[in-house]
């Protein structure tokens, strides 16, 4: 019988409305940058330019900050219920335009349409819905503490979850009565700019949300500017340290959500088939461009062989390729630069004596691609088990006892997330108490919800986003 393989199932992109050129969204209007400079945003799967995007310089940043400061006066006096109405409206409009958002997210960032459609966009809308609900209930979230808004928040977000990170930043800031200047990453600005159009259409008062584009220099100008009372940053630990310095010297409140090198720990009494799915979701979700990715796998020696056989088999069912195909599991690496970083680590891993495994999958010629990869024979001292790779690369180590694995799991400068797999409830609690990580999943991995706080320890940053804790980051108290 002829082998049964899936046929192509391309998502229709004809309905998407994209401009050729995007200006800065300041004070409710799209305006040309003082810099007069534009840069291209590129589809990482085809290497074709999608649109030109304005580059904000210091004058543009200054204008955006002043617009936000001006808008803060009436916005902060608006009742919580009124603020909530605007936020609900934005949430509904994201839902209405969810297909368009999903397609743009996949075109601009390279993530599979399945993920942008089923995860990124619905979660972004859910964040706006969730924080809209808090807008008029802040006193109940912090009883007897008189919560007050901060002022202007400067927010800088990364390229791995462009719209979702914009939602994580904007929704709580607005709910708490602040105004915002947000900068998306230079490789993935389009969904944030689409969100700017939604915000304009929603009739949000001018200047409450300003979205400006540019690279690291623009971000540095934002952090150094005297107006913002709050800096919120998600991205690399390296840049996070610079943001922190700027916050200290400018006496600004700050939250940082930085890198990670999560331990995903599997005991021999775990439901093995479920762990395989968890490992896959933990490291190959979004091409591994996930700060909380389960990139260090610890397997109890007694089940090591079984896990390895099943993991490799499951890896062979993953489809790598066109992000716009509905059956794609692993899309394009977000940028040429990031692909170089990943490839450098693959080389380092081999040089360190680790054994590499990649399934034999067909990949397109154009674009940035990396097949799902795992390393075995890895030592705790290897760079591939210490440093964040931010790609679809898993480093596997074995362990013998619970004490040993706690020790190894915590032996890292990071502390964002971790996973524990066992059928025994008491063991879960033993581990979750001992692991130094902000988020710990038990018998699952990479599950997100707006009601649940998210954030790290140590070099993974501080402050929490999501849940009631996420409000705290945008409020001051008497």
């Amino acid at each position, binding site marked *: 019988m002829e082998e*049964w393989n899936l046929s192509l*199932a391309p998502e229709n992109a004809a309905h998407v409305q994209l401009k050729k050129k995007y200006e800065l969204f300041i004070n409710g209007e799209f305006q040309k940058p003082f810099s007069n400079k534009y840069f291209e945003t590129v589809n990482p799967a085809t290497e074709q330019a999608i649109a030109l995007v304005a580059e904000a310089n210091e004058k543009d940043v200054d204008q955006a900050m002043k617009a936000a400061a001006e808008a803060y006066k009436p916005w902060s006096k608006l009742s919580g219920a009124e603020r909530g109405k605007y936020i609900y409206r934005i949430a509904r409009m994201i839902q209405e335009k969810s297909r368009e958002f999903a397609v743009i997210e996949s075109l601009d960032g390279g993530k599979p349409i399945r993920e942008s459609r089923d995860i990124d966009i619905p979660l972004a809308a859910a964040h706006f819905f969730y924080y809209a609900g808090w807008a008029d209930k802040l006193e109940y979230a912090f009883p007897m503490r008189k919560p007050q808004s901060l002022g202007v928040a400067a927010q800088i977000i990364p390229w791995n979850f462009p719209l979702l990170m914009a939602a994580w930043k904007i929704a709580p800031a607005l709910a708490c009565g602040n105004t915002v200047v947000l900068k998306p990453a230079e490789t993935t600005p389009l969904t944030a700019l689409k969100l700017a159009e939604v915000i304009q259409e929603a009739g949000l008062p001018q200047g409450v949300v300003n979205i400006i584009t540019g690279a690291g220099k623009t971000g540095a100008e934002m952090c150094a500017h005297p107006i913002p009372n709050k800096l919120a940053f998600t991205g690399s630990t390296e840049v996070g340290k610079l943001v922190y310095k700027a916050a200290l010297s400018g006496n600004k409140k700050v939250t940082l959500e930085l890198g990670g090198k999560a331990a995903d720990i599997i005991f021999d*009494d775990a439901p093995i088939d479920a*762990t395989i799915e968890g490992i896959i979701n933990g490291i190959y979700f979004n091409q591994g461009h996930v700060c909380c990715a389960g990139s260090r796998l610890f397997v109890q020696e007694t089940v090591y062989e079984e896990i390895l056989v099943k993991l490799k088999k499951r890896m062979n069912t993953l489809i790598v390729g066109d992000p716009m195909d*509905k059956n794609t599991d692993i899309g394009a690496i977000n940028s040429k630069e990031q692909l170089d970083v990943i490839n450098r680590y693959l080389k380092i891993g081999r040089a360190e004596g680790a054994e590499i495994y990649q399934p034999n999958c067909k990949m397109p010629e154009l674009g940035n691609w990396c097949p799902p990869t795992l390393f075995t024979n890895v030592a705790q001292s290897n760079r591939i088990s210490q440093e964040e790779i931010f790609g679809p690369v898993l480093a596997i180590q074995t362990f013998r006892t619970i004490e040993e694995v706690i020790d190894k799991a915590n032996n890292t400068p990071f502390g964002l997330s971790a996973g524990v797999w066992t*059928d025994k409830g008491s063991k879960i609690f033993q581990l979750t108490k001992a692991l130094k990580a902000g988020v710990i999943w038990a018998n699952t991995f990479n599950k997100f919800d707006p009601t649940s706080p998210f954030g790290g320890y140590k070099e993974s940053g501080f402050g929490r986003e999501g849940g009631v804790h996420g409000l705290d980051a945008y409020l001051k108290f008497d």
Partner: protein
Amino acid sequence: MNAEQLLSGFKPTPVDLMGVNDRIIRIKSRSIKTHAKNQGLSMVLSMIDLTTLEGADTPNKVRQLCYKAMHPQDQLKGVPSVAAVCVYPTLVKTAKDALKGSDVKVAAVSTYFPSGQSTLENKLLETQFAIDEGADEIDMVISRREFLQGNYEYVLYEILEVKSLCSANNVRLKVILETGEIGSLDEVRKASDIALLAHPDFIKTSTGKIGQAANMQVTLVMLQAIWDHYQKTGVQVGMKPAGGISDAKTALHYLVMVKEVLGQEWLSNKWFRFGASRLANDVLMQMAKQESGIYQAPQYFSKD
């Protein structure tokens, strides 16, 4: 080896519902289009055990079903016949005669289907009768009464006895776990592992006679058990989800599950079956749509 020896050192394998659901979400997100859809629909049809298991079944009813099994829709080109017709033992001879000259097999439910509440002696007599009447395949039920009391040795013993009777007569055996009666997915996995120790030809989810029939969770857990068994012993065992699968789209997702969990080698009616009565017409409707581009109303497809 006897049941006691086979079960020595038996260790239950834990199953986690979250993990099962995560896997199913991924399977259901597979989009099956164009050529893959045509090929898949044809496979689904060829894997159906067309079933009638009513007290009201008569020879004429069964003969009609047999014709449908051989000629699901002659107006459409390239439509395969279904895999088998599934009936009570007393109607095996009628079906066998009606299907003469075709590839369609006759499957007989046996061992006091659906409850299995009888003695082993009676169960073996009934099975022998069905075989003598000409059954190609036997669909037996496990004793849930003994399983729920923890008497796994007896459950396996019964399967082994029926299995040896079938083997001696060159008849293939399907073992029905009736998953809707045995509890959680952990229990489904345990029952699968026990049944697999007897090396049957298929394990099967349900009788179709109680409310809860086959679903994707249960099927996934059973497929995983089949895979583990295959890794350990090298013995290939087939799978039959039965009852509750009535639309072509869901059936295609079952095929994706088989392909991704077990592999291409299981994608034929030798190793995978659907126990269904309504599924065939939905598949035919989809096939007609693939050919003409339009959906036809149900009245264009014969019921039996």
